[in-house]
């Protein structure tokens, strides 16, 4: 009882313990913010990664594989599979409007409908009318809310949905168009709340796309260039994609990369054109063969409740059946033993990165945990000084019958109280900072030119954060325990003071 009374009195009548509580507050807030941001970074990374590539993907880079329609049919017939989408993953050079030099970047050829079924890409189209502002757009400054823009935004939303733009003068005839990431080329300024303000509204403008097709052996053929309209822009939140990825209709990219279905000259294993004498002239003529269309990747989305490893195993089986059924017709002939053929989950696709982030989180927590030990020593130093200051009071308490354990309990309960106050304040501070970390970061940037979060390094254009209640509880309990640990030695010192000397202490 007396411990509670004195703890309350010491807490409300002394400045020094408030310094100890402040140390606990700062350390608790620091660890919680780091864990929340890093945890949020990993969570966002995982969600973004999954959103873009589905649950499992089958890939055969560069040259790709044929008869993918058959593969997709087989996949979608399986009860574990929600949808499958064939795509081409390639690279290209894109010259955007008013841009002096072309830029290289990732180029995906996608079929809009199947791609949307797997990765919901239509939800990521940025330029489409909004009925209400985004939760972060507290001022309602988003262009997409503007009624004057509504019809225009509806139009470009339709273009983006189809990855096509109507030909001038013939609205029923559409031509393939590009959908580029919102951060590509710096045409959009990011305002507070994550709102984008376009310097130049890209949809409707034209860009020049150049690709280098490869033959079956990976040798480059002549560069293919096309001037294509921009249909819309997408936003995933993953900076790497938002700044570097361009989407194009699958059939258009197949044609540019010579991966479409067509008659082509036959080449031998050495790459030489196979010829045959012309029956009429006797002159050697190239032998023509019909090549089926190819893609490099098939994205697979699992039915609800199906785990990725389960789906991965099933997809391997389905692919093996597909390869057997099309034996001799797939060029190059993929099979389940081909090392170039990969059946991966989205996690294993990003495995290196995810592992690195997880290790980095562990390392950061370890380092900040070590730094937080300063709180323990600060509490220890402050309590040591306070115990010295209160030597006479300790003698008085012993004289009126307080036991050693009771005196130790007084200082430990005092440490507990300081830990609780510090941890709760630290938790509140962390909650406020984590909840407003992007506005704070933007303010720091405006006031001091301080850019801590560079999206080119950290992948995401906004600082992700994820205040997990369990993690928060662990950190808060850790903060309280560190304060109690800091109070332990001074408490023992107080308990083992000689009461007679304490009473004579000057």
């Amino acid at each position, binding site marked *: 009882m007396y411990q509670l009374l004195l703890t309350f009195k010491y807490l409300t009548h002394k400045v020094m313990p408030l310094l100890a509580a402040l140390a606990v507050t700062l350390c608790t807030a620091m660890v919680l913010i780091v864990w929340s941001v890093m945890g949020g970074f990993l969570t966002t990374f995982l969600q973004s990664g999954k959103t873009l590539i589905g649950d499992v993907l089958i890939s055969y880079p560069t040259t790709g594989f044929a008869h993918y329609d058959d593969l997709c049919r087989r996949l979608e017939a399986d009860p574990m599979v929600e949808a499958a989408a064939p795509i081409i993953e390639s690279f290209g050079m894109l010259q955007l409007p008013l841009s002096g030099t072309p830029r290289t970047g990732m180029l995906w050829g996608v079929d809009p409908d199947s791609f949307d079924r797997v990765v919901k890409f239509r939800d990521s189209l940025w330029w489409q009318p909004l009925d209400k502002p985004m939760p972060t757009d507290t001022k309602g400054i988003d262009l997409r809310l503007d009624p004057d823009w509504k019809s225009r935004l509806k139009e470009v939303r339709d273009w983006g949905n189809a990855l096509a733009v109507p030909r001038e003068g013939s609205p029923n005839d559409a031509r393939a168009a590009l959908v580029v990431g919102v951060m590509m080329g710096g045409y959009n300024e990011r305002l507070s709340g994550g709102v984008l303000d376009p310097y130049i509204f890209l949809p409707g403008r034209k860009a020049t796309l150049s690709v280098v097709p490869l033959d079956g052996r990976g040798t480059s053929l002549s560069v293919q260039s096309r001037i294509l309209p921009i249909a819309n822009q997408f936003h995933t939140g993953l900076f790497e994609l938002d700044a570097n990825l361009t989407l194009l209709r699958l059939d258009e990219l197949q044609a540019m990369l010579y991966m479409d279905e067509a008659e082509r000259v036959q080449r031998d294993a050495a790459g030489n054109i196979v010829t045959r004498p012309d029956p009429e002239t006797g002159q050697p003529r190239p032998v023509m063969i019909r090549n089926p269309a190819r893609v490099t990747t098939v994205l697979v989305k699992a039915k609800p409740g199906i785990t990725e490893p389960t789906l991965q195993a099933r997809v391997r089986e389905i692919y093996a059946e597909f390869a057997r059924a099309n034996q001799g017709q797939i060029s190059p002939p993929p099979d389940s033993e081909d090392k170039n053929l990969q059946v991966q989950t989205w996690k294993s696709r990003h495995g290196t990165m995810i592992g690195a982030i997880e290790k980095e989180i562990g390392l950061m927590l370890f380092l900040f945990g070590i730094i937080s030990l300063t709180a323990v020593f600060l509490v220890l130093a402050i309590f040591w000084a306070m115990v010295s200051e209160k030597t006479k009071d300790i003698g008085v308490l012993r004289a*009126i*019958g*307080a036991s050693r354990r009771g005196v130790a309990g007084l200082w430990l309960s005092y440490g507990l109280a300081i830990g609780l106050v510090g941890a709760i304040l630290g938790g509140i501070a962390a909650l406020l900072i984590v909840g407003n970390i992007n506005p704070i970061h933007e303010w720091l940037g405006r006031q001091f030119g301080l850019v801590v979060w560079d999206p080119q390094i950290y992948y995401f254009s906004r600082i992700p954060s994820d205040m997990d209640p369990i993690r928060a509880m662990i950190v808060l309990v850790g903060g309280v325990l560190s304060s109690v640990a800091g109070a332990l030695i001074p408490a023992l010192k107080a308990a083992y003071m000689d009461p007679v000397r304490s009473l004579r202490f000057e």
Partner: protein
Amino acid sequence: MTTAAPPSAQTIVSVSNLHKTYRLGRVDVPVLRGVSLDVRRGEWLAIRGASGSGKSTLLHLIGGLDRPDRGAGSTIRFRDSVLSDLRAGDLDQYRATNVGFVFQFYHLLPELTVLQNVTIASMVRDGLGHKSSAATDKAKALLTTFGLGERLRHRPAELSGGERQRVAIARALINDPDVLLADEPTGNLDRATGDKILDALAKVRAERGQTMIMVTHDAEVASRADRVVNLTDGRIVG
């Protein structure tokens, strides 16, 4: 006045051949050298001596704040208990229940109010079984008796020396101890205020039949007691 009362059923504290030595650096300094005395129930005993004579040490030993030298046959008996045989927890309980200390410099806890400074002794004794309202009522009654009924919410820094000492006496009495141990209770006060404190102690003695052991260097203060023993160089000399 006598130097030692014979042990009897009325004896509440009995000190026998008490030795206490402190070590200062490498030197052993004997403070008490074979002190023996008995204190009767309800008696007001004054232990008089010069500074350094060992009188405060004797009081601390009787109060269970310190232990006598081992192996010298030193014994302090409280009723039927030998204090040196008590375990630390029992000695804590002895201090909380059977004795009450009054110090020269009051030793009030500065963060607490007058009322809390008195009730804290009750809290220490009762632990989790503390009954707050009963203790508060009792503390208020005691403080009112000592003329501090209007100062309950004040802090020690807002009181005069005499008032502080009266609060200390109330704290010492809150648990109805068998023995009140007063260490130079007027030593930090002017004569008039000191006399008022002695009057207060005399009133306590008269009203409660309180056994009191008071140490002082002042002969006039000692003369208020029933009996005076003189301590010189760690020995009772008459």
